[in-house]
């Protein structure tokens, strides 16, 4: 199962390119491969150019980024917390981002303001969790982190609910509900540029620190005895994963299950070595979210919120994975 790593990566890359072509082609306006190529070169019809450049490409880019970032953050957190059942939400990033976005909608901010508040909310929630957990002495830091994450997540959830009650039920409440379900329907080319650097800055340390992240998954004492400064490494991993997750959540809303399920599949393909797990998780996550988002916009006349589909596809798939045997747990 673990041999042929480069072959597997190559295969996944080809699959991803094919998926992108498919996502460019289908929709209310069907485009042939020739039309797509012509449009990308700049000599297609005006209508095709608008569809490709203004609608489909930004949306594909957003799906790729969000899937890759969530899967990478999930893989990193699973190693960090030494638990394959951990998702990127564990330290409250989604709850914080949700609260930020809902506050933005409540205050009738423009789209960019809402995204900024969502990003800030996600970062602030995790920063709060880190600070509180670091203030607790003489306890298992990882355990305190998880528990504090649950607490901060619950608090943010409660405040989100409060804002929903106070919000204008005709205008703001539908917008809030739709945002919390997650969607890429309204992504514009301008949305991509602020998110891309945040995702890249988040992913680079995870790539570079891959081997140390392996050692960290042996547990704190052992990792330190092997020469790893676990405190600093943990902070670096959490900061990186949170940056990437908060950025894509600000763009796409709350998308569950991607960060939980994808690292499992990646582990089945190439084993748990993080230096291999991460690239495969990135590719699988990007491809998975692109496939699901393409489904979301083509499956019926009205757009299905992406968060609903990631859960509806992810949850049963996860059960199937579990039923296949213990390899999934480990």
């Amino acid at each position, binding site marked *: 199962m673990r041999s042929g790593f480069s072959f597997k990566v190559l295969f996944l890359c080809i699959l991803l390119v094919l998926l992108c072509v498919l996502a460019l082609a289908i929709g209310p306006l069907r485009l042939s491969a020739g039309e797509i190529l012509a449009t990308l070169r700049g000599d297609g019809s005006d209508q095709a150019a608008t569809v490709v450049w203004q609608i489909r490409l930004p949306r594909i880019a957003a799906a790729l980024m969000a899937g890759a970032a969530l899967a990478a953050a999930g893989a990193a957190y699973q190693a960090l917390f030494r638990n394959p059942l951990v998702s990127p939400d564990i330290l409250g990033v989604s709850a914080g981002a949700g609260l930020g976005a809902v506050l933005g909608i409540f205050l009738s901010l423009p789209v960019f303001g809402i995204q900024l508040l969502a990003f800030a909310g996600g970062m602030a929630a995790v920063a709060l969790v880190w600070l509180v957990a670091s203030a607790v002495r003489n306890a298992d830091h990882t355990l305190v982190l998880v528990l504090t994450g649950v607490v901060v997540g619950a608090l943010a959830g409660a405040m989100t609910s409060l804002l929903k009650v106070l919000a204008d039920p005709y205008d703001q409440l539908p917008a809030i509900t739709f945002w919390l379900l997650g969607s890429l329907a309204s992504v514009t080319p301008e949305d991509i540029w602020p998110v891309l650097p945040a995702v890249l800055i988040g992913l680079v340390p995870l790539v570079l620190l891959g081997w140390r992240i392996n*050692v960290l*998954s042996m547990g704190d*004492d052992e990792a330190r*005895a*092997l*020469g790893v400064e676990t405190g600093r490494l943990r902070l670096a991993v959490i900061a990186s994963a949170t940056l990437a997750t908060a950025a894509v959540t600000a763009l796409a809303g709350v998308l569950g299950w991607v960060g939980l399920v994808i690292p499992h599949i990646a582990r089945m393909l190439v084993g*748990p*070595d993080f230096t291999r797990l991460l690239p495969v998780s990135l590719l699988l996550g990007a491809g998975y979210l692109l496939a699901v988002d393409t489904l979301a916009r083509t499956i019926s006349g009205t757009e299905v919120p992406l968060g609903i589909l990631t859960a509806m596809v992810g949850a049963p798939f996860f059960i199937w994975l579990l039923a296949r045997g213990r390899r999934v747990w*480990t």
Partner: protein
Amino acid sequence: MRLEAESLATGYGRLQVGSGISLGVGQGEILCLLGPNGCGKTTLFRTLLGLLPALSGKVRLDGDDLTSLSRNTIARRIAYVPQAHMTAFPFMVSDIVLMGRTAATGLFSRPGSKDREMAMVALERLGIADLAGRDYTTLSGGQRQLVLIARALAQQAGIIVMDEPTASLDFANQSMVLAEIAKLARQQGKHASGILLSTHDPDQAFLLDANVALMAGGGIAAGGRAAEILTGEALSRVYGIPIIVEKTPSGRSVCSTGLAG
């Protein structure tokens, strides 16, 4: 390389577990830590490894105060063999052993081909090279313990601290690991390891002809050569049951207890 503790007090915050502990182990020496459950052996180990701050006193590695050294430097001088455990993820045995090379690997890199060779050599030395490609989580307790010892060997530190290395091993593997420990300590010159191990079996201290620190109530009740320290009287006092030390016809010392109670 020499690991030394000077009037060390160990514990967690306000909870003091051990006090007045002084001991030393250098390359070529074996020090066996013996004592009843809960006497503070594991807490002492964690303090000696710098994983737990000392409440008072000092730990020195080659004269350097442990608190002044980075984790990386400590890991190059002292290796830790925990009790056989399960990992959260199904790492390959060769990857687990390769983790011993982390301190010698750059922060942003992966251990290289030379490190892989060293990991293989370590596995070969313990006679488990055939496990290299296996999933660590599918191994038996004894095999996992051997893998963790191999990882410490790959670390190439002068001092190796082992927490009950024979606890999960069968009869044959126990004697194999003990023989390997003796061999490690008896290598020539600077290649010789200094080994600090805890055990519940006083016979192992006799077998290794080791130095012994007999722990009781958080302190060291007696220290010195096994043959001098481990008398029936001393063991009976520390463990609180009658223990006799006898010589076998071949001249070896062995301990035996009746059924306590």
